[in-house]
């Protein structure tokens, strides 16, 4: 464990896969910069992957003053042991004051392991970051109880202060290719015999890609679609809007669409630019997964549906009339 006195700099972990950065890493450079400035610290990006020098350069263009670059084939596809080893070793070497990590499945896999190994505090799935005025610690704000409660959490006595942050909550900072910064290469290789988890195969299902976390437009359907045939309307609207199809738990449980499309507490947490909720009443578990969206459009026949409380645009009406008309209107505008 590093002491309060020796710890310095604010880190953002940039996760990559097959050479590509997950967007949340760049997004975190935005609050990272702000926190680093308020604390009078340097913003450092940790880039881990295989052949990811371009990502390191981009991190600087997005505002990192320094990049710690960890490259190797073992970092090409996520390996829990390799990622944990590398991050832990770096923290023990440099003693950052705080580490921000994207709350992807991989980030939420490695971060707790590193926190436990270093015996420090980790706050999960933050949706808001700031500095606690009284103590100068990072104030990590996160939802709990399925989104019913928000908690502001501090890690006052241990370093580094660690947190995972939900993708899509922060916008990427402005890209400036003229920014300069240092790239420090770190040769970190875990002995292969210490890798306990092995990737047997990566199965790419030929069905449509369901990358809900990174989608800019999501059109989701719920119980109000009434049948698998009805659910087709959601797909058509998603096509017209250039979006990805999401679903409420009710639609998934009814078997209209696979679980990979589920948005909400037991599915994915999303924050697209536009979220269209069709025939979704808006149970708190669903709201927990989508209320961070920039613009929410809700279509429902029940005027009391809780989804309308979070919607920017609401249509109270029969979605079987509204959605086909919307598709027609949108297609006409495109033509």
């Amino acid at each position, binding site marked *: 464990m590093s002491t309060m006195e020796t710890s310095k700099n604010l880190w953002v972990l940039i996760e990559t896969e097959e050479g590509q950065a997950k967007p949340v890493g760049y997004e975190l450079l935005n609050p990272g910069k702000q926190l680093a400035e308020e604390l009078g610290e340097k913003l450092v990006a940790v880039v881990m992957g295989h052949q990811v020098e371009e990502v390191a350069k981009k991190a600087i263009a997005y505002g990192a003053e320094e990049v710690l670059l960890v490259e190797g084939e073992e970092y090409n*596809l996520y390996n*829990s042991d390799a990622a*944990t080893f590398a991050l832990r070793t770096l923290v023990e070497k440099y003693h950052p004051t705080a580490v921000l990590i994207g709350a992807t*499945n991989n980030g*939420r*896999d490695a971060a707790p*392991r590193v926190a*436990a*190994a270093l*015996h*420090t*505090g*980790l706050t*999960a*799935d933050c949706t808001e970051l700031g500095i606690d005025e009284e103590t100068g610690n990072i104030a990590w704000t996160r939802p*709990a*109880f*399925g*989104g*019913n*409660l*928000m908690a*502001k*959490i*501090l890690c006052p006595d*241990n370093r580094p202060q660690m947190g995972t942050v939900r993708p899509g909550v922060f916008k990427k900072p402005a890209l400036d290719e003229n920014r300069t910064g240092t790239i420090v290469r770190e040769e970190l290789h875990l002995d292969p015999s210490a890798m*306990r*988890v*092995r*990737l*047997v195969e*990566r*199965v*790419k*299902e030929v069905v449509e890609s369901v*990358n809900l976390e990174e989608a800019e437009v999501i059109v989701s359907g719920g119980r109000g679609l009434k049948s698998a045939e009805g659910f087709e309307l959601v797909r058509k609207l998603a096509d017209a*809007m250039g979006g990805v199809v999401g679903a409420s738990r009710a639609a998934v449980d009814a078997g209209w669409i696979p*679980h*990979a499309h589920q948005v909400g*507490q037991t599915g994915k947490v999303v924050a697209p630019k536009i979220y269209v909720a069709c025939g979704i009443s808006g*149970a*708190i*578990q669903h709201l927990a997964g989508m*209320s961070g969206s920039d613009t929410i*459009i809700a279509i429902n026949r029940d*005027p009391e549906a809780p989804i309308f*409380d979070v*919607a920017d*645009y*609401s*249509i*109270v*009406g*029969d979605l079987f*009339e*509204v959605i086909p*008309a*919307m598709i027609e*209107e949108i297609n006409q*505008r495109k033509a």
Partner: protein
Amino acid sequence: MNILVCIKQVPDTTAIKIDPVKHTLIRDGVPSIVNTFDAYALEVACRMKDNDPDTTITVLSMGPAQAMTALKECVSKGADAAYLVTDRAFGGSDTLATSYILSQSIKQVEEKMGKVFDLVLCGKQAIDGDTGQVGPELSEHLGRGLITYACDVVVENSEFIAKRESDQGYDRLAVSAPAVITVVKPAYKTRYPSIRGLQKAREMEIVSITAADLPLDLEQCGLKGSPTKVRKTFTPTHEKNGLRIENERGADAAAKLVSLLADAKLL
């Protein structure tokens, strides 16, 4: 095979309401349940036992005495042994302290059994705290291999093979015993208690483990052993006062909405 499933008793968050005036959680009358994801983990374990009857399932929970009910429910569904880790000194533990206490308890149970659990299964997260950190932290304290977010686990050639969802499909990951795996919702349903199981649950004496039973550094337990401190809690406000289109024909409502979206440059 020897499997341990970690269980948390939680308030059914789907039944929690917000006090509209005080903006606080109304917890009175909210039923306590076995955390949904832990129930999935138990189901995964029960399926492994279906395939290999020579499997023992142990359930372990940290919590107050009333968590016995949750453990008994697990026994009624197929668990063979149950432990409750309970002590006032554990109250207020964050995920680091909780995973430390759990890891010491697990090692203690293993020592008594004279063997190590081949697999420790946890739900991906508890539906009250929603952190998802205890499973991975536990693997680190125990020094065992970890796979998170598995939607299925099977045994193949004496390795655990877990299916983990990815953006384009899924990964098949292998880990040797002893390991820790956290599970998401599987494609199958969880089972109901059996008549025999219910009887077994009624008769079974659940073993309590307290701080005095464990080799523990109490400085690492409870509130004082928790590096994270809750500064304050508040209920989120969702009220947005968005624009509402009502009492119009479907086609008119749609035309109005699309035109509004176009004006806001959202199309």
